[in-house]
């Protein structure tokens, strides 16, 4: 191995310039920041942070603490504060990448400003790669916090490599171990940086691994780093509104014995290990490995030109090949000019690319190889899992770009600064993603998810129960209720979580909140709404826990409750037999007749029909109310095949107050195809209303609703779903559930 330069060979890091680069990136993120919550997991995480609750396994305790502190900052809305946490973490990472690149250039670029220019390109590229940018302007995941940990561990490892025998070297290694553990408490991906640290240590000072006292100290520090997981059982015992997995043995209140119990340990470990998801072993590939690499490549192409409309595939491919080549060149010059940090950064890139692709073992991507039919697909595009890969690759791409700059400089027949300046325009390639990704990465003005939550909750009468099916018709509602205080009187019950054991206990604990008519829609101001006095379910805790995962019934069954006589057809249910969630939905219906009206979200697809409840269904805006007796048609209740009846006056009154249609049209785009069931709910509802009004002779109003539907369909690029406006609405798209969470209990009848 060639000798590595001593620490003195590297100029003092430009921390001030790195801070300026980070501030510029933060400004960019602030300009393009989501003004409120978003779809998928954003609402769940904002709610968890605000309530100091527990999001889905593994619970991300460090993120929850950070998010809670962010939510306390007295500026902007709670959602903006938590979104800014993602922005700050990514801007911090960009500043660290600035330092890394400056250091690599330090023995190669003699003039300081040229090193700073190269480092700035790295900061910009790493910040504007599509997935990094798009995930940094809304707190949809916890991965930007992980990125910040990756970056700081990278920098500390570089510092250790500079002087592995120095006075502070051992302390740096112990600190690195601690931060890896702490990163794990944010997300298990925190460990991904570990192998790269190990390789760097072995390459730079192999004897280190024989120093058992140091190794022991590092292991203890790593253990200290994961202790934020202790937050989970403590908070779970207080039963916050969001208490996923309920990792506590305490039933009513926190206590020593119930906290230090076998139940707490079992539930906590189930959360930490994410047992709920039941992912197959790595030997059981969910798609061919080459297809999984193909998914990484598909999203790699997005980084330099997202092209969500699919109109520039040629340019996208050219840019991807260019940045791939620049990255390879960057890796080569990294190897040549700073071997010490290469031994960290090279393995890091391999880990967060090839190893991560193998470990994640994804099915085909949601938008990968659309020509393939009959293959299993991820429910959404999961480019965010490779955020670290694309961020790190941007660093190498920047190095490749400055290497190109240097090559041009060496060929110019100029002298001094002029030759550097003359060749500088080549660095403008680093600005390409900033220009090409702005439209798709920006979340500025994206109000529809918040409005959707308000609209759906307001479609439910006071004290109603709303049955939802997946992430996107549930999490925004949690956010609206818990963070913004919108319609807390409504009980939201999501079927995908009703299949777990803890969720129904959590629902049963929810307090009954008085309906605030002044904040509710005008449609309910004239009614008399009696606050329920009975619990949501008549079952005891033991009876709830005893509900089976499924009942092996495959033929139609009669369900009776009051005047309801519904024929449940298991063949139309998701699993072909009634599962726990189906039993609980019917139990809720039975226990709340005359007490709480039960609704199903318009996004629930054919669930209503599968339960045989269509004769009792009345569509009111974005939700369908289950009446306690068969519905008969009237001037206001118009029968519609497949939907039951439509309550025309109520639906029109609700529509008058809906905010999402305006937000969707104003935005002129929709976040992704897998969540299209949300705009679809509005569009199909407007078309339905239009058809019904036309049939009653009100053609002017019918035209207005049809116009609104078409405007939304154009804005969300879903006109293909409504190609024959005027005919009955087509089959709705699949509910927007994240399948990995939506099927927590596999059923094999």
């Amino acid at each position: 191995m060639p000798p590595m330069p001593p620490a003195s060979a590297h100029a003092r890091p430009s921390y001030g310039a790195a801070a300026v680069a980070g501030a510029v990136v933060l400004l960019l993120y602030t300009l393009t920041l989501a003004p409120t919550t978003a779809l998928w997991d954003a609402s769940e995480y904002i709610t968890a942070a605000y309530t100091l609750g527990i999001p889905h396994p593994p619970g991300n305790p460090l993120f929850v603490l950070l998010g809670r502190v962010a939510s306390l900052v007295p500026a902007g809305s709670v959602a903006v504060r938590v979104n800014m946490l993602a922005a700050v973490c990514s801007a911090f990472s960009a500043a660290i990448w600035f330092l890394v690149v400056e250091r690599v250039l330090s023995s190669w670029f003699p003039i300081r400003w040229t090193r700073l220019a190269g480092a700035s390109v790295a900061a910009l590229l790493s910040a504007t790669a599509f997935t990094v940018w798009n995930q940094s302007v809304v707190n949809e995941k916890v991965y930007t916090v992980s990125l910040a940990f990756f970056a700081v561990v990278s920098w500390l490892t570089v510092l250790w490599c500079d002087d592995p025998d120095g006075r502070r070297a051992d302390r740096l290694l112990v600190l690195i171990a601690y931060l890896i553990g702490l990163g794990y408490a944010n997300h298990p991906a925190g460990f991904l940086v570990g192998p790269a640290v190990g390789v760097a240590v072995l390459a730079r000072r192999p004897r280190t691994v024989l120093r058992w006292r140091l190794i022991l100290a590092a292991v203890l520090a790593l253990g200290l780093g994961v202790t934020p997981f202790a937050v989970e059982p403590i908070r779970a015992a207080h039963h916050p509104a969001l208490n996923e997995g309920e990792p506590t043995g305490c039933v009513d209140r926190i206590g020593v014995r119930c906290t230090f119990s076998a139940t707490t340990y079992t539930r906590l470990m189930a959360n930490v290990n994410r047992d709920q998801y039941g992912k197959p072993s790595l030997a059981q590939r969910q798609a061919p490995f080459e297809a999984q690499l193909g998914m990484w490549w598909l999203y790699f192409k997005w980084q330099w030109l997202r092209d969500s409309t699919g109109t520039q595939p040629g340019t996208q491919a050219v840019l991807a090949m260019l940045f791939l080549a620049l990255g390879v060149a960057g890796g080569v010059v990294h190897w040549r000019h700073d071997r010490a940090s290469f031994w960290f950064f090279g393995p890091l890139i391999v880990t967060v690319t090839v190893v991560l692709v193998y470990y994640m073992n994804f099915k085909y991507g949601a938008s990968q190889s659309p020509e393939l039919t009959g293959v299993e697909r991820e429910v959404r595009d999961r480019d965010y899992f490779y955020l670290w890969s694309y961020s790190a690759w941007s660093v190498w791409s920047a190095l490749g770009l400055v290497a190109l700059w240097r090559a041009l400089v060496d060929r110019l027949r100029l002298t001094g600064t002029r030759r550097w300046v003359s060749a500088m325009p080549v660095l403008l390639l680093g600005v390409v993603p900033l220009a090409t990704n702005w439209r798709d990465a920006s979340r500025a003005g994206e109000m529809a998810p918040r409005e959707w939550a308000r609209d759906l909750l307001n479609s439910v009468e006071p004290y109603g129960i709303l049955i939802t099916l997946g992430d996107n018709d549930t999490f925004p509602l949690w956010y609206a209720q818990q963070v913004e205080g919108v319609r807390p009187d409504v009980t939201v019950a999501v079927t995908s979580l009703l299949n777990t054991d803890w969720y129904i206990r959590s629902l049963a604990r929810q307090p009954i909140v008085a309906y605030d008519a002044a904040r509710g829609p005008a449609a309910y101001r004239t009614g008399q709404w009696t606050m329920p006095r009975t619990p949501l379910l008549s079952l005891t805790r033991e009876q709830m826990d005893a509900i089976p995962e499924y009942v092996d019934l495959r033929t139609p069954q009669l369900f009776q409750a009051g005047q309801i006589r519904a024929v449940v057809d298991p063949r139309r249910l998701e699993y072909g037999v009634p599962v726990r969630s189906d039993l609980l939905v019917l139990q809720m219906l039975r226990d709340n007749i005359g007490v709480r009206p039960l609704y199903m979200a318009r996004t629930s697809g054919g669930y209503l029909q599968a339960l045989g409840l269509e004769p009792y269904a009345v569509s009111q805006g974005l939700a369908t109310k289950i009446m306690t007796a068969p519905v008969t048609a009237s001037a206001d209740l118009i029968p519609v095949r497949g939907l039951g009846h439509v309550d025309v006056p109520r639906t029109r009154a609700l529509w008058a107050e809906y905010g999402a249609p305006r937000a969707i049209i104003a935005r002129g785009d929709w976040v992704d195809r897998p969540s299209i069931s949300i705009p679809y709910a509005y569009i199909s509802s407007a078309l339905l209303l239009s058809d019904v009004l036309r049939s009653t002779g009100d053609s002017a109003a019918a035209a207005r609703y049809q116009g609104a539907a078409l405007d939304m369909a154009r804005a969300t690029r879903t006109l293909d779903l409504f190609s024959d406006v005027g005919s009955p609405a087509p089959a709705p798209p699949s509910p927007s559930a994240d399948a990995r969470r939506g099927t927590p209990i596999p059923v094999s009848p």
Partner: protein
Amino acid sequence: MRLLAPCCLALGYLDLVRGGLTAGPLLLVAGYLVLVPLALLEG
């Protein structure tokens, strides 16, 4: 720092145990992200 860091974490957890939503998270974040790293660097 070696004394301050564990005290900060202990107080943070105590506040969480009693149901606190403000001081506890602030103390834990300060402890985990600032004081413990500084203590480890001090050696």
